[in-house]
């Protein structure tokens, strides 16, 4: 009997449950998708080191999943609570008919189980299909081979999803029982006869608060963009964040009153159609919506910022990689090793053998330790010099105090690296990048790390800057930094190289380190991988070096590629995961809130009908009312994001450029548009049904 009752109830209130169901299904599907990553086909096709990255990613994702589960759990409890409260009157009638609270709890329990099972099933099916698409995406990111496509179902992810959601549903049941046990019969029966108290805010206070809110936001925006260099520690980011939150709340608290005031002054607009009604509706309801609107706005803000900046980061990383890894191998070795030297910030004593080795070339070291040089081609070895009297402090000259006051955290005693022009050109030619020429009294600064480049340009812009290197004074050939680098890396991180003429009297002991660049003597990826393996920890060559305590630092194209793509991919996946969950959570809360509003507003729309508004007008009024409630948080979130993304880009300086942003913003807009739009549409259609109910008897 109870089963039939709850089943019928569900069928009856299917419209109310639509959004709840949609949210559950989406939640389950996304949860499954991200937890089934490791068993997806694309993951089987990648290389060993990529598999390590994926392992790391899966590990991180499983932690993130706990957080996601908490968010979803809260959302489900909230949504369920809302639905149960909608049916107070129904439960009241059951109680008058002699049903106990226990039985009511049982009805709700059955319903929860029912909806839970269906949504889990639908969600997992959806998730399984969606993850096939994701597999393709992953394959693209990891450049894996996806020619032999097979359909993958992850049992582990499925079980994990079921367990997590089962726990959530149990939490829901617990809360429901709690809610029901606190019911009083009279309140249940009178639940629909709610006393509507219209709270009116003083218009002047509204305007005042609005101006204060906007000013606080403006200050926070300024702080994170124009004044961003003052934020050198993590703690300093807290005030702007708090200001952002306070500003958002204040703006939402006062916005409707403010808009009402402004529109009321424009009588022509105010006294047109149902404008007056719509505005008053919003003004009336926004009071109870301040908290949720602010939360929704901030969640949307996070979604937009996280999604677009992470996508931008990934895109630019990938682009940089191809450009920044022109050869297969870079090796460096310290030259002229002292008896004590610094290693990872600690003083270390060097051995005789190490000191001897530091005097010979890298090629010799390699040959001495059993590396067959015929594995390499295009081998170039160049020295990199430093001198005691040339560091960043000296380079910045008389601008040093100004720069130091703005960037106190820079290491100003870092010695400038000096390379002779012909050495550089040899490398540049191999790399396929710009070669330079110098007169005998000139130098050039090469730099591609964005913020450092800007600082150096401040000094170079006058064109009068002079540097003394090995006792000779040189002047800068250009009044800006030039593009260039000698060490491969995943992104633009060359903070500065000074090119000097070949006749610069640098001495043997000024050599700071030696650099070897080379390509592998192989054509296929497999053969290259074999040579790469000769340079890894397991090879005889590296074992020999280790036994003697010799050190060669190196980076290879393959390792840089894999590490960077892996990093970017992890960041992107987590961002997409969190972003979409935040988006669903905020859309669902907003949708449910609006549906409650609509059932409260039924009477008002009925009055509109009675005084002769036609369907079109009423639908338009409803559309506007719901549209504005959906649009307000989104608009403010977009404004927040404009500044937030700029800040994020600055923080990741050099890693992502503004040009990369446009496509990722478009992608973000599409994702948000689809999900947020779907919830908006569901809300509008649901509300339309609700306000029609009483009229069409």
């Amino acid at each position, binding site marked *: 009997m109870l089963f039939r009752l709850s089943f019928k109830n569900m069928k009856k209130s299917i419209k109310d449950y639509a959004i709840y169901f949609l949210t559950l299904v989406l939640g389950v599907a996304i949860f499954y998708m991200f937890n089934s990553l490791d068993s997806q086909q694309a993951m089987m096709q990648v290389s060993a080191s990529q598999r390590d990255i994926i392992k790391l990613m899966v590990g991180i994702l499983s932690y993130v999943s706990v957080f996601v589960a908490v968010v979803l759990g809260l959302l489900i409890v909230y949504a369920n609570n809302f639905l149960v409260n909608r049916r107070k009157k129904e439960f009241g009638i059951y109680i008058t008919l002699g049903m106990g609270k226990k039985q009511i709890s049982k009805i709700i329990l059955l319903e929860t189980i029912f909806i839970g099972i269906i949504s889990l099933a639908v969600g997992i099916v959806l998730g399984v299909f969606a993850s096939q698409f994701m597999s393709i995406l992953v394959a693209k990111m990891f450049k894996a081979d996806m020619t032999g496509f097979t359909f993958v179902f992850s049992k582990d992810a499925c079980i994990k999803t079921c367990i997590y959601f089962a726990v959530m549903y149990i939490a829901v049941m617990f809360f429901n029982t709690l809610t029901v046990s606190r019911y009083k019969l009279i309140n249940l029966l009178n639940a629909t006869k709610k006393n509507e108290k219209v709270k009116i805010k003083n218009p002047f206070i509204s305007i005042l608060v609005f101006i204060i809110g906007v000013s606080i936001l403006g200050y926070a925006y300024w702080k994170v963009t124009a004044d961003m260099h003052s934020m050198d520690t993590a703690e300093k980011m807290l005030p702007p964040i708090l200001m952002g939150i306070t500003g958002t709340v204040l703006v939402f608290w006062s916005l409707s009153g403010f808009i009402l005031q402004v529109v009321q002054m424009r009588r*022509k607009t105010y006294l047109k159609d149902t404008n007056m009604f719509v505005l008053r509706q919003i003004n009336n309801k926004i009071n109870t919506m301040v908290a949720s609107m602010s939360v929704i706005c901030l969640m949307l803000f996070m979604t937009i910022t996280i999604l677009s900046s992470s996508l931008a980061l990934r895109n630019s990383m990938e682009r940089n990689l191809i450009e920044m890894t022109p050869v297969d191998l870079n090796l460096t070795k310290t030259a002229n090793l002292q008896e004590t030297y610094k290693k990872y910030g600690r003083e270390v004593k060097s051995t005789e053998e190490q000191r001897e080795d530091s005097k010979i070339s890298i090629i010799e070291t390699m040959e001495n330790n059993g590396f067959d040089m015929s594995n390499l081609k295009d081998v170039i070895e160049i020295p990199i010099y430093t001198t005691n009297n040339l560091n960043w402090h000296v380079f910045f000259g008389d601008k040093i105090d100004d720069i130091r006051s703005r960037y106190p955290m820079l290491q100003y005693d870092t010695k400038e690296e000096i390379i002779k022009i012909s050495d550089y050109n040899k490398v540049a030619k191999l790399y396929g990048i710009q070669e330079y020429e110098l007169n005998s009294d000139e130098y050039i600064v090469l730099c591609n790390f964005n913020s450092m480049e800007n600082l150096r340009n401040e000094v170079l812009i006058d064109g009068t800057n002079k540097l003394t290197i090995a006792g000779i004074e040189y002047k800068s050939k250009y009044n800006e930094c030039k593009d260039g680098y000698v060490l491969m890396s995943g992104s633009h991180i060359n903070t500065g190289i000074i090119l000097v003429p070949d006749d610069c009297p640098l001495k043997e002991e000024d050599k700071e380190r030696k650099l070897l660049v080379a390509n592998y003597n192989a054509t296929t990826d497999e053969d290259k991988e074999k040579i790469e393996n000769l340079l890894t920890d397991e090879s005889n060559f590296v074992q020999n070096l280790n036994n003697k305590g010799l050190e060669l630092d190196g980076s290879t194209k393959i390792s840089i590629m894999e590490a960077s793509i892996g990093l970017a991919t992890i960041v992107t996946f987590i961002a997409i995961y969190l972003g979409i969950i935040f988006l669903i959570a905020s859309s669902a809360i907003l949708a449910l809130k609006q549906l409650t509003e609509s059932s409260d507003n039924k009477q*008002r729309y009925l009055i509109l009908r009675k*005084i002769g508004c036609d369907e079109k007008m009423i639908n338009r009024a409803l559309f506007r009312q719901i549209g504005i409630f959906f649009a307000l948080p989104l608009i403010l979130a977009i404004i927040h994001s404009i500044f937030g993304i700029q800040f994020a880009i600055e923080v990741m300086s050099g890693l992502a450029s503004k040009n990369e942003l446009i496509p990722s913003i478009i992608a973000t807009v599409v994702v948000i548009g689809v999900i947020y739009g779907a919830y908006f549409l569901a809300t509008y259609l649901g509300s339309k049904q609700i306000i029609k109910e009483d009229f069409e008897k």
Partner: protein
Amino acid sequence: MEKILEVKNIEKYYGNKSNLTKAIDNISFEVEKGEFVGIMGASGSGKTTLLNTISTIDRVTAGHIIVNGEDITKLRGNKLNKFRREELGFIFQDFNLLDTLTAYENIALALTIQRVNAKEIDKRVGEIAEKLGIKEILKKYPYQVSGGQKQRIASARAIITDPKLVLADEPTGALDSKSARQLLENFEYLNKKLNATILMVTHDAFTASYANRILFIKDGKIFSELTKGNDTRKQFFEKIIEVQTLLGGDLNDVI
């Protein structure tokens, strides 16, 4: 005289074949311009159904209702809404004021949905408020004013569009006797001075005594008709009571 409303042999059935209820059973009458007609009857007599069919909220099963020369039983969809918006004014027992809007805005709403321009709205709301004595409360919200004032706001809203016919459903039903009297005096004013045609449904003899003519309805049929003629209101009231007694005790019970 010009005929504003012609009701011709209307019928309204509820239910199905096995259990048929005739809410209105062949009713015909006419209302001329400037008349103040009352419709009296007990609960379930069909008077509200009659009002609903005239106000186009409900449809008739058979017959025709002609308002100002137009057969409204043939209107559909937006034309119906347009008709309701432009030709009819409504006054309800529970006021049906929007609690989120001020008195001014409640009255103005009837005009804004007809897309009257803002200046005109200002002028007309001012005038009608003056006449109904609610000028001081225009800036107040419904919850801030008394029941009588609410009903006068509702009356102002009903009359401001200059409707051909004002339909009032138990307008004094939720009012105390003093407020009721005040409202009815306002109705008299609307009827006599502004020449508004009013059709009012009530079961209260005192309220009905303000009308010029009264139709008594019982079991969906017109049972009797009374015209005030040259009687004073007191004499008319006594006549109403007589008819009510004739109609049977059930009528008195509900008061």
